[in-house]
């Protein structure tokens, strides 16, 4: 009796979590007359909205741009965050306190506050209207939280493992690359996922920095389905948003197996 209840609770939870996606799918497959009548399930399903979304906005180019920026951001953040987080987690200095405090403080700045100075700096280096510039901005924006996340994962790795490596003659860099990084795989994957999501969905910096129609990202393209006075092209927007989730779903499907825990079990014999 207990198990069926657990399954029921789990099913309710999954349905709750999946409802937005189901609503999106239902709305994307409704015709114009059904869009105004409510209900999640389309009575006469149609793929017209997908055609409209792709035809009206160049979703393929936008998705490619978003993917380039998101993958670039993720790679840059991981390369920068791994050694920094390792240093913050393992070295006990006053700098560590200051650095952690700064990481926290940097998260409370409103985006609009940093947008203008950032824009002016990037303009000096001709990085406005460039995917490289946007990647740098996204990396700067995601780095503090990635640092925070990775510190926790690194702290969970027993020092004994590293000391064993040092005893065998490995230097700091070798310890980091050959011992810590593999053990940190689940943490790196989780951090990569977080970074990827934040860059994939980011709207405001892309809005301000990108002007060339060939370089716009997906969130900017989707925003075009919203007009003045609260008008929304709901069918096309839902179809576009649904298509926009596909690359990130594929990415997560590919890497989620790496998110397993327990890699450390048995690493240190007690």
């Amino acid at each position, binding site marked *: 009796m207990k198990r069926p209840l657990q399954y029921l609770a789990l099913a309710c939870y999954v349905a709750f979590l999946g409802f937005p996606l189901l609503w999106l799918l239902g709305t994307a497959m409704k015709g114009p007359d059904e869009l105004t*009548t409510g209900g999640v399930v389309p009575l006469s399903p149609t793929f017209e909205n997908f055609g*409209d979304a792709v035809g009206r906005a160049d979703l393929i180019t936008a998705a490619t741009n978003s993917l380039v920026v998101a993958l670039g951001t993720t790679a840059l953040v991981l390369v920068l965050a791994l050694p920094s987080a390792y240093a913050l987690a393992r070295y006990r200095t006053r700098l560590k306190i200051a650095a952690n405090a700064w990481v926290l403080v940097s998260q409370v700045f409103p985006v609009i506050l940093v947008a*203008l100075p950032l*824009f*002016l700096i990037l303009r000096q280096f001709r990085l406005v*209207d460039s995917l490289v510039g946007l990647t740098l901005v996204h990396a700067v924006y995601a780095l503090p939280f990635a640092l925070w996340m990775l510190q926790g994962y690194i702290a969970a790795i027993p020092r004994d493992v590293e000391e064993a490596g040092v005893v065998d003659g490995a230097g700091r*860099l070798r310890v980091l690359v050959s011992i810590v990084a593999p053990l940190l795989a689940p943490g790196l994957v989780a951090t990569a996922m977080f970074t990827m999501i934040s860059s994939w969905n980011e*709207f405001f910096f892309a809005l301000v920095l990108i002007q060339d129609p060939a370089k716009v990202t997906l969130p900017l393209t989707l925003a075009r389905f919203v*007009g003045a006075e*609260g008008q929304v092209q709901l069918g096309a927007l839902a179809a576009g948003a649904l298509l926009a989730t596909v690359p990130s779903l594929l990415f997560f499907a590919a890497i989620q197996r790496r998110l397993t825990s327990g890699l450390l079990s048995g690493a240190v014999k007690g």
Partner: protein
Amino acid sequence: MHLRRLGLAAAAVLLAGCATAPVGPDVDESAGPITLRFQSLAFQEPSVAATERIVAAWNAEHPDVQVQLAQGSWDAVHDQLVTQFQGGTAPDVIHDESADIAGFARQGYLADLGPHLSEDTRSGVPQGVWEAVTVDGTVVAAPTLLQSYVVFANTTVLEQAGVTIPTSPTWTWDELADAARRTTTPDRPGLGWGMRQPTATVMSLGLGFGGTFFTGGGDAATLQVGDAELQVPRRIHDMAYADRSLDPTSLTQSGSDVITAFLAGRYAMVVAGSYVAQQLAEAAPPGFAWRVLPALAGTSPNQAANPQTLSVPADSPHVEQAAEFIEFVMRAENLAALAQGEWLIPASEPARNAVHAATGGRDGWEATLDGAQYLTTAPFQGVADYPQWKDQIATPALQRYLGNQTDLPTLQRELTEGWAQVAGG
């Protein structure tokens, strides 16, 4: 030790890179044709296509001045322009609305288009609409498209209730209240009105009772909230809570939510932006008979004009050419194509005539185009602290009153004291 040296070397390389990085304008202005960047916010597919056609036609006629079209979004145009004006990278031709650009104009970001616009363009647009894009005596934009608030009626329900469909040029608020009462049944209120953001509606329709709210402009404006200013909220409140002919629930909803209910037959009438006619034309179920009723009038049928605009940054190196392109867009056939695509009213009379000729006045166009003559400038559009007062004071105060949580004297006091607070006394 190696790592430290490596770090120092990397820092040196980065600094050297920064020091030698090129600085200055992104575009080489000395060679080739002039390129104007035009950010359009055209939303509906037909108006996006019309914009592309207009730009292509211009580019074909003007090999020396090429327009590069970029598609923007209404959703965040203000934040985008704030940054771009500061950074000196705003598009050469900016699409926005008059209420939004007034602040930019006051900060000196927009060029004076007055000397560049032809007499034909000027005379085709009513003076009241020009005033909506005139800041401190300077014409900072060309008005393109407008919307008004109109009453949409389910004519079948009106006829069944014995309400005569009005054919006069205007329709009074008393007649609206009477029709709402007569079409109300125990199962169905006569009127639905999406008023989730009530301030713009109250300020705009208030003009019809002489409710100007503000006198003076810029930082020197003063607010008065008298009988004329309170007429619109009072009448809406009375219909909702005294007559019970207006659905109070609809007052908390967005315009599109209420239109959905209207199409489902839940109301006999709704008040909404004129552009909603498109939704009705496309989504009305078979047999659903509807029409746009004549312009709603208090002591006059006046409403505030908040036109969409085209303007040019003051620091654009090509103000004259950008203004010529705007003139091109303002041609009757171009403006008419944009207006039809967005289901909005073109600002110029020749363009309105072109829309009427093209649509035959069907699908509500007749009454919508007729209502354009009553759109005029409103004092609040020139008030520096209006946006803050609107968001922080007026909207919540009106929401409380229309939600029947406060009374009219309280609304009056909250609006007045709130202005004193916002404007510093």
